[in-house]
């Protein structure tokens, strides 16, 4: 009896919808280009409606796929691979983008939504180029659709018997942050397509005035916001879910989102120069193209296997080739159009002074571009090295940090300094007047920090091993400088506004922000970035320890089937005495292992440790680090960390291993100073973006209201500010890690434990380094198990434990009494591993000078070029015949001057 192929009407209709969308997209490309080229209104209209129809068809496909998830249509392979019946509805919906095929469809869906809005808003304003814009968007859509239809169709069904149950979503993705992280990041990626399309439309149509710039600036701001949001959410997910105590590891997939963030930020600044001075037209077009290109490149990286990452979807050579061809087409067409229109784009670059806002923006742009290219180089270096000599050299966080830290500090400084500079030039006297307060405050804070917090004087290598500076002190000082500078801008602006309007300070501040939304919204964003850096600084002072406790305070008595509490006082708020064997001290905290709780449900088996944290004898919190073993989630259990959040530092507890019978538990504890400020910094950044995006109509409405009493105006102001800040904090207060299941009696107790060695001690705690040389060596060697690309020091698997033991044994045989001898011992360990594993791929950071040399050369070269170009432009600017204030030559000019004054009065 032959089995019939499973039939899924959803799959059939879904595939047909994709095919129809493909044909519609092709029509839109043809009609759009022909319509604008031949100035045919009906063809352009047809292409616009075709774009809307395309969006509706993709919406239909998305709805059908999600319907398949919620109705458990396991005849569809994608549904069976990423879903199961016991999953909650939310995770079934998010499974849509959980796999490669669905993520591509999700990309097309989000771009369809965005492009519908963008075209609907702009098609009347840009009739002469909207056809080209539609065609460009549709080319991108058709490319992704061709991937879907011909190679990665999410509606593919099983050829034979369909399974009755799905495999379920990767347990690591079953987390609140993973529900919102991919959509936000994809939204950021997709939003970069709109400015690119308008740029191409402007080039193709030859309409290169600034109209296209004002249309795309908002979309680039949206792109910037969602990229920021996506990156922060990804960091938050990594922090809560992966259990390694950090939030950013310079993973290739993380870098894929960061690179377009740099170029989008650069564009937002250089667009201001084009609006103010009419310069940098080619530069802006290049940035728009580069941002879009990097989003496609990032998508290529994560889906082609070009880089290794825990986030990557895997290796696919056919997909890689398709992406490479598409990226080549993007570059050829974009560069070709820019060259073709170069005569309309060239402007004489002139600046009048190095101490001008224009020059500060130019430096800012170059550094952002340097950051983007450095991250690109470092991310692709393992692939490049493998292509060159067959060995895949790893590039770890240390390599990135040595370059990105100083570049970041320079950018941060510019974030504070540029607002203090005037357009065109700032005289020496004005320079002193503007910089005095922030500089004095910074100098004072350096002195206070150096004395009050000597740990900030710790030297950290930057750029190269030999160049060591007190980086933490510099960063903190720069943060304070930015804060004082922005504060001064707000204060002085508020006072000016107050003099102009006679309002109270609150109303003046609100009026200032509403009338100059872009400027002051930008200042708030700068402040948010400074607060982010405050969170970054804390990373340098994180502490980590591994402890094993043989038995909890409360032990389960199997014979009696009841719990026999060893100590009665565990519920009280002060640290009970006599618990030395069940507790350990780390930092200022005492951790008391209270009990081990085992639970089970349809999805998973959970083993949870209850740990009390005490500070100065008082109970700070009770936390529940856990291991969850999903029934259908693969072999590896997930780590559920427990975090006690404080503004000064987080206490981060991980259950790395346990023994259920005895109750033995192995803990890894991190103390992460200042990490909460990373999340707070983003919230401030989001507030700044909201202010920038406030519509002009709102500003007009608020300012046009009839005059009221001062109290009334202040109340209005306070209400508006409360609404805006409240909305921002609402984002900040969203979810935290899910609370653990209540300690119900276990339905079953799986035998054995998890993460335990033969000695009964958890792997993570086994063979910890005994001296500095061993610790350095373990931190510079990657664990060969390839789990999360961690170092031997960090990894908590059995391989890592064994290798730590080997390293300890090697170091023990050598003399490490002096720093020089310790260095020799360290080098010999590394050499042994390189010989054992056949190359430098086992190293966490490259040792050869080649990868270090290239960024060095590029940085010095770029700095030299920047100085040379800047000097040339300034020389040209000073030599150019100055536009003088010509005397009014006729009486009629006075009439025009009066009209000008009237228009100035209406301009805010």
């Amino acid at each position, binding site marked *: 009896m032959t089995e019939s192929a499973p039939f899924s009407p959803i799959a059939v209709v879904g595939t047909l919808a994709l095919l129809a969308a493909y044909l519609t997209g092709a029509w839109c490309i043809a009609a759009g280009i022909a319509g604008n080229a031949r100035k045919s209104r009906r063809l352009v209209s047809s292409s616009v409606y075709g774009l809307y129809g395309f969006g509706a068809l993709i919406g239909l496909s998305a709805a059908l796929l999600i319907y398949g998830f919620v109705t458990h249509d396991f005849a569809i392979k994608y549904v069976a691979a990423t879903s199961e019946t016991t999953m909650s509805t939310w995770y079934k919906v998010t499974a849509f983008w959980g796999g490669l095929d669905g993520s591509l469809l999700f990309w097309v869906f989000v771009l369809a939504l965005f492009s519908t809005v963008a075209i609907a808003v702009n098609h009347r304003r840009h009739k002469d180029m909207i056809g080209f814009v539609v065609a460009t968007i549709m080319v991108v859509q058709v490319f992704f659709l061709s991937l879907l239809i011909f190679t990665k169709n999410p509606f593919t069904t099983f050829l034979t018997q369909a399974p009755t149950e799905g495999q379920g979503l990767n347990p690591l993705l079953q987390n609140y942050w993973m529900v919102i992280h991919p959509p936000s990041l994809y939204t950021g990626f997709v939003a970069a397509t709109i400015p690119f399309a308008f740029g191409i439309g402007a080039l193709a149509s030859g309409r290169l005035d600034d109209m296209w710039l004002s249309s795309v600036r908002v979309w680039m701001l949206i792109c910037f916001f969602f990229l920021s949001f996506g990156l922060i959410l990804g960091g938050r997910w990594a922090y809560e879910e992966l259990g390694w105590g950090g939030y950013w590891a310079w993973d290739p997939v993380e870098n894929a989102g960061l690179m377009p963030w740099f170029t989008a930020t650069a564009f937002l600044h250089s667009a201001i120069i084009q609006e103010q001075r009419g310069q940098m037209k080619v530069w802006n077009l290049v940035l728009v193209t580069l941002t879009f290109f990097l989003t496609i490149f990032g998508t290529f990286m994560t889906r082609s296997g070009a880089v290794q990452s825990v986030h990557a979807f895997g290796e696919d050579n056919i997909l890689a080739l398709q992406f490479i061809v598409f990226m080549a087409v993007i570059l050829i067409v974009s560069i070709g159009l820019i060259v073709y229109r170069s005569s309309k784009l060239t402007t004489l670059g002139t600046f009048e002074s190095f101490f001008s806002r224009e020059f500060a923006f130019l430096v800012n742009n170059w550094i952002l571009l340097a950051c983007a290219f450095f991250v690109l180089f470092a991310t692709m270096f393992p692939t490049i090295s493998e292509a060159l000599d067959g060995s895949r050299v790893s590039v770890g966080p240390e390599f990135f940090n040595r370059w990105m830290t100083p570049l970041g500090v320079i950018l941060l400084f510019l974030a504070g300094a540029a607002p203090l500079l005037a357009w065109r030039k700032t005289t020496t006297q004005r320079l002193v007047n503007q910089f005095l307060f922030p500089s004095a405050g910074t100098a004072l804070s350096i002195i206070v920090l150096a004395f009050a917090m000597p740990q900030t004087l710790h030297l950290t290598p930057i750029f190269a091993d030999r160049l060591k500076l007190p980086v933490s002190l510099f960063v903190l000082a720069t943060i304070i400088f930015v804060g004082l500078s922005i504060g001064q801008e707000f204060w002085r602006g508020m006072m*000016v506004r107050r003099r102009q309007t006679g309002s109270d300070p609150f109303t003046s501040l609100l009026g200032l922000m509403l009338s100059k939304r872009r400027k002051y919204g930008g200042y708030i964003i700068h402040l948010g970035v400074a607060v982010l850096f405050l969170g970054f600084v804390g990373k340098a002072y994180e502490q980590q320890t591994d402890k094993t406790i043989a038995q909890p305070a409360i032990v389960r008595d199997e014979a009696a089937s009841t719990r026999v509490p060893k100590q009665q006082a565990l519920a009280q708020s002060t640290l009970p005495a006599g618990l030395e064997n069940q507790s350990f001290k780390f930092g200022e905290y005492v951790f008391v292992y209270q009990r081990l709780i085992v639970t089970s449900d349809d999805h998973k088996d959970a083993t949870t440790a209850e740990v009390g944290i005490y500070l100065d004898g008082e109970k700070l919190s009770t936390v529940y680090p856990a291991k969850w073993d999903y029934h259908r989630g693969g072999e590896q259990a997930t780590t559920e960390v427990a975090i006690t959040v404080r503004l000064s530092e987080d206490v981060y507890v991980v259950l790395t291993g346990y023994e259920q019978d005895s109750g033995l538990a192995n803990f890894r504890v991190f103390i992460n100073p200042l990490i909460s400020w990373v999340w707070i910094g983003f919230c401030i950044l989001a507030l700044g973006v909201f202010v920038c995006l406030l519509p002009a109509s709102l500003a007009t409405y608020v300012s046009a209201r009839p005059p009221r009493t001062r109290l009334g105006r202040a109340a209005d102001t306070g209400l508006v500010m409360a609404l805006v800040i409240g909305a921002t904090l609402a984002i900040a207060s969203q979810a935290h890690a899910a609370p653990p299941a209540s300690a119900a009696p276990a339905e079953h107790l799986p035998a054995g434990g998890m993460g335990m060695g033969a000695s009964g001690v958890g792997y993570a705690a086994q063979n910890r380094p005994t001296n500095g040389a061993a610790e350095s060596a373990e931190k510079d060697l990657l664990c060969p198990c390839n789990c999360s690309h961690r170092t031997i020091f960090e990894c908590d698997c059995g391989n890592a434990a064994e290798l730590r033991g080997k390293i300890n044994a090697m170091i023990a045989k050598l003399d490490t009494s002096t720093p020089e001898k310790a260095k020799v011992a360290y080098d010999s360990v590394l050499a042994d591993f390189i010989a054992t594993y056949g190359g430098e791929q086992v190293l966490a950071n490259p040792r050869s000078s080649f990868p270090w040399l290239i960024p060095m050369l590029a940085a010095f070269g770029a700095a030299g070029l920047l100085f040379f170009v800047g000097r040339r432009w300034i020389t040209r600017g000073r030599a150019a015949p100055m536009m003088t204030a010509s005397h009014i030559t006729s009486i009629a000019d006075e009439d025009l001057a009066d009209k000008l004054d009237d228009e100035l009065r209406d301009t805010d």
Partner: protein
Amino acid sequence: MATGSDDKTMRWVRLGSLGFVLVVGWVFIGWQNSFHITPPLVFVMLGYLAVVLTTYNLWRTGASAVAQNEEDDGDASWGKPTGARGELDREKRTMLKAIKEAEFDLQMGKLSQADAHQMIGMYRARAIEVMKELEQLDLGAAGTVRERNMREVKARVAIEGRMVKDKAAPRTIVDDDAASYGSGAADADDVKTPMMTEAADDVMPLAATEAATPEASAIEESKPTDKLQEASS
């Protein structure tokens, strides 16, 4: 106008029909499921919405492609060409913003009085040039010389009116008002006053002959100049 309102009516008819079909479909789907809201039902309804929108937009795609345009598809009817006028408008707005920015920077202490005066003066001069060019574009080349003279006359009449008022009540001095940056005007007023009255008288008849032929206008336009020369000699 009638065509415009017809288009609007048709647009509302289409949207109304769309809404009606949507609501009827949703009610039917809900009724089939006893109005029990479940995730599958929600996505069926969203799918139905997508189907309706697809049908509508694909029909509009085809209809637009084969539509007969009532208007000429040439340049004149093709959207709203910006061209030189658009560029000048933008430049004027840029100058206005630059002036406000410079004034704000002055008050914020980033610019000295001298620097601000110089920058604002430059921007104002350029803005006035741009406004002149905009006026020329609006009027076209034919009326340029004639209309320029008309403006000149109007401005002189206005100034003369102000001067009469000033004689009766002296004008207060404006300190940091932006108009003070156009300081050249005061000198021009003083020099040209004696001639202005005569010129105004001479040009008045010109105003009465506005409907004259271009040739007559050209002859008339030369008259004020001649009168000025007579007055100066």
